[in-house]
């Protein structure tokens, strides 16, 4: 008789709901004649809220499901919520960006939901196989989303570059997984932990670890594996750029932290040094390159590279506080960056116009509130209190200092001081300069206002009252230690 493994659909219900919502949107919107985009957005939002409700029970669990392929613990719970927030805000920010007369505009939301589901599988993966499948589900959806603007050569160029580099990094990741499989006899994270605890690993296992690190470094866009980031972020539709910069990054960091702390925890001495160098290079190059950019999307792309460097410091610190800092930072960064890209999408409108930093001249005169909101996001990116970005940097830096990584923190502090220059350049343009031409009227949509409102409240609220969220992050990383 065939033994069927225990199936626990309840555990992966949030991701399942997103998949089902995607399918429903795909089928139902075929029959919607008018206002397809609005209908698709409302249906996606309902799906995301339902997934959020289904996610709540995960917080108290600490178990695995599907023969150890998926782990249901507070760590998955935290990242599932983060991904749902990112997906939900992106849906809200995208409504006015798409137009009803384009055939298949609703596919945008379908792909968004599918990539959200892929991210959830990735963050709760307890086996390299699950992590790989989640990674590819999200990547393939994002490749298409990056190139979804019809007849825009930049958009399809971005999709092409992302696809080539994404496939390349997946190949490297898989080769690492194969070498670990050959060493340990399994690619389940608990099996790998056992294997490294026994302490009889050879160079092949170390090579596997190195290749996995490179694969993840590509996905979180750490220098020197960042080459694709500026081009892809510049060419992709602006709301999708925001989604990539927080969603993909958060999912990749979640899997990175889980694999390296849980499965490869015994090798911490070996990988900490690699990550030290990666973090230092990423912060230096990301911030320096951002200074010279004139295109705001490209500037924010380099800024997102720099932020990956700060987050890596939290991994280098290696303690519970450090990883909790990573989680908090990703949460703060989600609100901040989706908000910032939301403003860029609003100013740039559908045609991807006005992406030059000079186009922000005099925004404070024509749209005082929007300029204020953008300034709050830029303050948070620069790490100025009382925003969430400040608390995130503080948590990560103090955890690293406690572990004696003084020089890394010095580099982090110096480069983030340099970053103030390019963030404030935009603020200066908005408040101090006058536009050369009369600015076009901006199309505010209710959903965009809602998205920006939620993002601003998030940035300020978790910045002023960080304790609850830092404790949540601490509680969420408990299963890894």
């Amino acid at each position, binding site marked *: 008789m065939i033994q069927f493994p225990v199936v626990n659909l309840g555990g992966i219900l949030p991701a399942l709901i997103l998949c089902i919502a995607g399918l429903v949107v795909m089928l139902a919107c075929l029959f919607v004649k008018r206002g397809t985009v609005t209908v698709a957005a409302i249906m996606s939002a309902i799906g995301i809220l339902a997934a959020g409700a289904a996610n709540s029970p995960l917080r108290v669990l600490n178990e695995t499901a599907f023969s150890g392929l998926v782990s249901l613990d507070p760590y998955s719970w935290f990242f599932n919520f983060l991904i749902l927030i990112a997906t939900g805000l992106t849906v809200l920010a995208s409504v006015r960006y798409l137009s009803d007369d384009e055939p298949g505009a609703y596919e945008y939301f379908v792909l968004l939901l599918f990539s959200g589901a892929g991210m959830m599988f990735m963050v709760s993966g307890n086996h390299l196989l699950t992590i*790989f499948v989640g990674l590819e589900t999200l990547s*393939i959806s994002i*490749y298409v989303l990056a190139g979804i603007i019809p007849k825009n*050569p*930049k958009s399809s*160029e971005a*999709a092409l570059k992302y696809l080539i580099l994404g496939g390349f990094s997946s*190949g490297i990741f898989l080769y690492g997984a194969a070498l670990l499989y050959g060493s340990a006899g399994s*690619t389940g994270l608990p099996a790998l932990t056992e294997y490294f605890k026994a302490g009889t690993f050879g160079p092949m296992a170390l090579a596997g670890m190195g290749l996995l690190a490179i694969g993840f470094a590509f996905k979180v866009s750490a220098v020197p594996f960042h080459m694709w980031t500026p081009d892809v972020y510049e060419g992709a539709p602006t709301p999708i750029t925001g989604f990539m910069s927080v969603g993909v990054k958060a999912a990749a960091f979640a899997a990175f932290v889980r694999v390296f702390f849980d499965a490869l925890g015994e090798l911490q001495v070996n990988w900490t040094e690699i990550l030290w160098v990666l973090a230092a290079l990423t912060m230096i190059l990301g911030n320096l390159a951002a200074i010279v950019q004139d295109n705001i999307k490209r500037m924010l792309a380099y800024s997102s590279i720099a932020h990956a460097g700060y987050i890596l410091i939290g991994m280098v610190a290696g303690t519970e506080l450090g990883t909790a800092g990573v989680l908090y930072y990703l949460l703060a960064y989600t609100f901040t960056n989706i908000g910032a890209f939301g403003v860029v999408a609003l100013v740039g409108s559908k045609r991807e116009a006005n992406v030059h930093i000079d186009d922000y001249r005099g925004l404070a005169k024509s749209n005082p509130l929007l300029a204020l909101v953008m300034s709050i996001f830029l303050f948070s990116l620069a790490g100025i209190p009382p925003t969430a970005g400040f608390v995130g940097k503080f948590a990560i830096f103090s955890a690293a200092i406690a572990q004696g990584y003084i020089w890394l923190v010095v580099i982090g502090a110096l480069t983030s001081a340099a970053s103030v220059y390019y963030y404030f350049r935009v603020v200066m343009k908005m408040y101090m300069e006058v536009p050369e031409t009369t600015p076009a009227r901006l199309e505010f949509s209710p959903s965009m206002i809602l998205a920006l409102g939620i993002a601003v409240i998030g940035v300020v609220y978790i910045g002023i009252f960080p304790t609850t969220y830092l404790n949540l992050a601490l509680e969420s990383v408990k299963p890894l230690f």
Partner: protein
Amino acid sequence: MVTLQHYLFLSAVLFTLGVAGVMIRRNLIVILMSLELMLNAVNLSFIAFAKYLDSIEGQIFVLFIMVVAAAEVAVGLAIGVAVFRQRGTVDVNDINLMKW
């Protein structure tokens, strides 16, 4: 006698060829073929390990990799067609609206 080392060596050579192909070749189609070569080199490693360790897990992993590779190449070729329609070329040196 063909041992595990032979398979691993072949797999490493194929993987390196794939990596070199992605980096050196300029034609999109060849780049996609090189990506496939990388993934298939990984598949070879997995299968060799699975046989050597007498474990089924590697074989299952290979099936997943094949499915994902097929999906990725389908999307890749679609994007390639879109790019070709816009510019009339699939040479990645000419696809440079944005500086690398």
